[in-house]
């Protein structure tokens, strides 16, 4: 597969050629179609892409949470600190889930149970993996809640989820994810439902937690702005494949995949006023009817005949910057 600049043993999580297909009504939706990525220690890695590109499915398959049927992991490896998670049984997986890999979801209101207090739910998360007596547990929970910046944490323990604001609920979810001191936190669009000012606070919180706990974060988002603010490395997904990968500088300053280029050009802002906004024509393909060859070719301004036939190969631009578009690669190499 891809040539990586860093030796393989520094990777905490390494996903290799993962394929997740969904079967329904005789149709086979190739939600994730051979993606590879890695998360190193103390690193924030972002996966960006539009809805339906397979971001969330990739995250869920790391935790073994793909409902099967209809879902099926057809191929690939998920190596977490050296062991292949796909080979583990449910019992072994449960020890890892929540304990070493924790997840924060998009909608904090639906991921908290409305009929239990914050204390009940946080306590349950802790006790699943650790033994603690009631006093110690309470002290630990208060510590956790104050770590994530919740004011007067002692009173919050007896509150119900509806009594907290959206931002505070997300903080509780983060506290829950932190409760077992995980090595990797997977955050699936944790700030999408929040206001910009609250989003900024949550991102700031994630950043400070990561520094304090030397944890890795796999952050899934559709918001390029958020991604550029927090990511060490970025993977751009499109229709189940990895279109481009690199650091924030490479992705935002010299994007090498037509899809990434199109996405960046179509972002509105004040400086583009008066000019017509670039827009990628067409829409994201249905995963069950993905075009042959490069899945982006029907929307691509650079597409040539081979794009329709051949699955594009990854092209290396050096320093960890890779893009799956041989056409642009040719053009850039020839112009040099």
């Amino acid at each position, binding site marked *: 597969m891809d040539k990586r600049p860093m030796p393989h043993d520094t990777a905490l999580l390494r996903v290799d050629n993962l394929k997740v297909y969904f079967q329904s009504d005789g149709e086979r939706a190739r939600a994730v179609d051979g993606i590879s990525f890695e998360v190193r220690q103390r690193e924030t890695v972002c996966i960006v892409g*539009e*809805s339906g590109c397979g971001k969330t499915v990739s995250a869920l398959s790391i935790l073994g949470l793909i409902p099967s049927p209809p879902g099926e992991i057809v191929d690939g490896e998920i190596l977490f600190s050296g062991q292949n998670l796909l080979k583990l049984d449910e019992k072994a997986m449960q020890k890892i889930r929540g304990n070493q890999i924790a997840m924060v979801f998009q909608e904090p209101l639906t991921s908290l149970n409305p009929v239990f207090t914050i204390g009940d739910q946080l306590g349950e998360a802790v006790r699943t993996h650790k033994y603690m007596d009631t006093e110690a547990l309470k002290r630990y929970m208060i510590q956790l809640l104050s770590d994530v910046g919740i*004011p007067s944490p002692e009173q919050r323990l007896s509150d119900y989820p509806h009594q907290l*604001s*959206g*931002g*505070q609920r997300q903080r509780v979810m983060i506290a829950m994810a932190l409760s077992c001191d995980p090595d990797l936190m997977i955050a699936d669009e944790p700030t999408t439902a929040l*206001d*910009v*000012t*609250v*989003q*900024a*606070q949550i*991102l*700031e919180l994630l950043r400070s937690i990561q520094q304090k706990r030397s944890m890795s974060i796999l952050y899934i988002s*559709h*918001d*390029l*702005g*958020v*991604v*550029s*603010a927090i990511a060490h490395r970025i993977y751009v997904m499109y229709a189940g494949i990895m279109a481009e990968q690199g650091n*924030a*500088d490479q992705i*935002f*300053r010299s994007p090498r995949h037509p899809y990434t280029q*199109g*996405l*960046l050009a*179509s*972002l*509105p*802002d*004040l400086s*583009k*006023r008066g000019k*017509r*906004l*670039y*827009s*990628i*024509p067409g*829409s*994201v393909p249905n995963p069950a009817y993905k075009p042959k060859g490069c899945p982006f070719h029907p929307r691509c301004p650079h597409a040539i005949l081979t794009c329709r036939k051949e699955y594009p190969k990854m092209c290396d631009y050096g320093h960890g910057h890779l893009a799956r578009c041989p056409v642009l690669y040719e053009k850039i190499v020839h112009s040099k």
Partner: protein
Amino acid sequence: METKTKNNSIVLRLEDVKKYFPIRRGFFQHIVGWVKAVDGVSFEIEKGKTMGLVGESGCGKTTIARLILKLLESDAGKIIFQDRDISRFSEKEMKPYRKEMQIIFQDPFGSLNPRMTVGQTIEEGIRILGNKHAKTRKKSLETLLLMVGMSPDSADRYPHEFSGGQRQRIGIARALSVEPSLIVCDEPVSALDVSIQAQIINLLKDLQDQLGLSYLFISHDLNVVGYLCNTISVMYKGQIVEFAPSEDIFNQPHHPYTISLLSAIPDPDPDKKWHIKSSNGPIGDSDGFPEGCKYQDRCFMAETACRKDKMGFEKVGENHFVRCWKVDKNK
């Protein structure tokens, strides 16, 4: 706002509009307090121009949209639409004005009737316009669909057959079907993917150029608002705290809330260091402060005076107004 000049180029003007919702408690549903959803809002929209209304969720943006469209009755103030105060109009008096203003909703999935074909949905408006002949109706239906970038044969299909972006186009065609002069866009692109968002923004702009529409564009995405709008009103807890042309809001924001809002936008340019300019806490309970500034608990410039003084909406520049005690004392 101070600009009271009679001007025919103004499509819509709000003057000190208020809407309070009662908070009821107990068995007898006694009123125990009021939520000041809209608390003295004034602004105006020029013909063929777009005004952006930004603010956090719960600040009263959507309530304003509903007040303008008379889906809600305002408690006080004037809503002047095409030189007539419509705020106290009866249903009957309102009727001719209804088709002059339309709305585009945020959720392209929930805002179309799943049991009506696209054609039926859009044609309903054309029929209301008084177009009696089936043939001419069909003709205008086709024109509308082409106008929003859809093929005429999509008229016989149902909403579920379309993607989010296409549905939003259908919603726009429906709004246009009665030939309105003002369209209220309530977060029309926030449910869409980035690549689709740009298509819809371009469409809204094209339609404005072609038809001379005026937009009230409600959004929480400042980048979209900055790109699309001529003027911007920043709203906080039912009040407009700053109003100015887009460039001024972005380049010389005065109100501390505007400043913190702008600093909170993560910029996709890795060169720009992202730094949030305030230590503001979570948004507090509505109306925790009977006196003084509503933003005082989160403000990074707050002083004792902010707790008591009543602030006016002061002019700080050409067509630039701010509701902040500190700003107008400095000027």
